[in-house]
């Protein structure tokens, strides 16, 4: 897998510190996110993976006691998306996110997927319908959902709900897609499908994914970042991290001796 030549950078995390109130959860993280590649975030539970992911779409701004220091520079415009001068809404319109826990709206399947377009003011029915079908197909939910587009989304199974959330994020065609353990609630077949989807999507968009499944990271990620207690221990090509890690902590984690 892996790229032969280094691809261009899509986003650059620079000296990022993050605090929940007085508690520092991310410690001086710096790493590049490469364009049209998949970067996996791995590490033991509570090490700050979700927290880092949520910095990328300014989700933390919704809560008063959170605090960022440092930058995430979005290329090629070189905007710092953490800057208070940039509206979080703009960031969220360009960077999509799928959460760790499935969170469909208690509305119809169709309305769930169409929501991102509706808030952008898209009115054209045929366009919305087209996009909903395409996103459901991409997320591998179409065959199950096509006969019940107007039934309640919360009546679906957990795995179906998670794929619906993926479809909802895809409908607005984000530049960067953030995935927080998107396959943790899925069976092996749906998981394989999502992994295929990610490989397909990489042609057009940049993906940052948290996963606890090391095999999944090894299979699908071009780059892997290993985090531990809020620090970025090691970042590099997936092949290198999994075969010849340079830090013993990384080695211990991926060989299962720890965490």
């Amino acid at each position, binding site marked *: 897998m892996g790229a032969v030549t280094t691809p261009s950078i899509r986003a650059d995390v620079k000296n990022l510190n993050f605090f929940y109130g007085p508690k520092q959860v991310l410690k001086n993280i710096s790493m590049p996110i490469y364009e049209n590649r998949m970067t996996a975030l791995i590490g033991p539970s509570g090490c700050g993976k979700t927290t880092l992911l949520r910095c990328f779409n300014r989700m933390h701004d919704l809560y008063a006691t959170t605090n960022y220091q440092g930058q995430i520079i979005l290329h090629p415009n070189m905007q710092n998306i953490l800057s208070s001068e940039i509206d979080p809404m703009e960031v969220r319109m360009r960077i999509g996110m799928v959460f760790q826990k499935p969170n469909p709206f208690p509305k119809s399947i169709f309305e769930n997927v169409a*929501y991102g377009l509706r808030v952008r003011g898209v009115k054209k029915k045929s366009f919305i319908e087209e996009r909903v079908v395409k996103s459901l197909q991409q997320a591998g939910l179409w065959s199950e959902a096509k006969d019940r587009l107007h039934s309640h989304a919360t009546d679906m199974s957990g795995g179906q709900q998670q794929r619906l959330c993926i479809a909802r994020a895809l409908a607005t065609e984000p530049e960067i897609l953030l995935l927080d353990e998107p396959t943790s609630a899925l069976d092996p077949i749906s998981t394989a499908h999502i992994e295929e989807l990610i490989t397909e999507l990489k042609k057009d968009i940049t993906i940052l994914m948290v996963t606890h499944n090391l095999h999944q990271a090894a299979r699908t990620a071009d780059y892997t970042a290993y985090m531990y207690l809020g620090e970025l221990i090691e970042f590099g090509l997936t092949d290198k991290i999994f075969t010849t890690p340079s830090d013993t902590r990384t080695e211990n984690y991926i060989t299962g001796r720890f965490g």
Partner: protein
Amino acid sequence: MSNQRDPILKNIRRRKVVDFLFSLAGLLSLLFALVTLLALVVDLAVTGVPRISAEFFMNFPSRFPEKAGILSAWVGSLCVMLTTACCAIPLGVAAGLYLEEYAPKNWITQLIELNIINLAGIPSITFGLMALGIFVYKLELGQSILTAGLTLGLLVLPIIIVTTRESVRAIPNLIREASYAVGASKWQTIRYHILPYSSGGILTGVIISLSRAIGETAPLITIGALTFVAFLPTSPVQSVFPFVSLQWLKDPFTVLPIQMFNWLSRPQAEFHVNAAATGIVLLLMTLVLNGVAIYIRYRFRKKMKW
């Protein structure tokens, strides 16, 4: 063996006796409350129900008890409730939404919240006095349906604010995050998610506050509601241009509990029968309102799964 068991069994028996005594005390308290309530209602029904007839609803009050009816009272109650709802619902829901979704979570907000909860416990006659000073004398709205509606609106405003806040708070943050994550604005999130998902709870609060307002007497007497009204408010529909009229808002009025109070204060027993009948009507209205509130809450509970 039995030597070892005996103290344990004795201990258990002793604690079971306490259990039994407490449950007995609880049951007796419950029965006392229920029986008293039931006796009151049955007494009211036995006296009042035979008096209820179509004429009772269609007649104005009269000097002759058998001719007297509650037409002006129930029409007045209806008009006052309408005005109350129109003033309290938009204010209460907007204030509740602001406090929960927009206001920064600091001590000022907490202070406001605390005061609103306290406001809900203030004796209603205090609202009447305030309304007399502000609405009747300062703003010169008169002793009218509008004044009554505004007064009762203020009285139930805290209930609506608190229930709005509670039902908004019950919506998990995951849902808000899902909405913001696709790029929605605050208003869009409120408009498409927060309001629809909390409307069941809000509606329940509204109905409960109306069922409280419909029985209020003291503040309306304070602002000078009439006790003997032999006319109806101006009709909202007119035969001449512009065909609708808001004159009824400025008309004097009476309401069911005041009519009841008025009849009760007469010496003749026949009037007391009229009062009991009015009481039954008022009780039924409150029961129906509360029933509707329970039904709405049940329907929304079933629909909202997170």
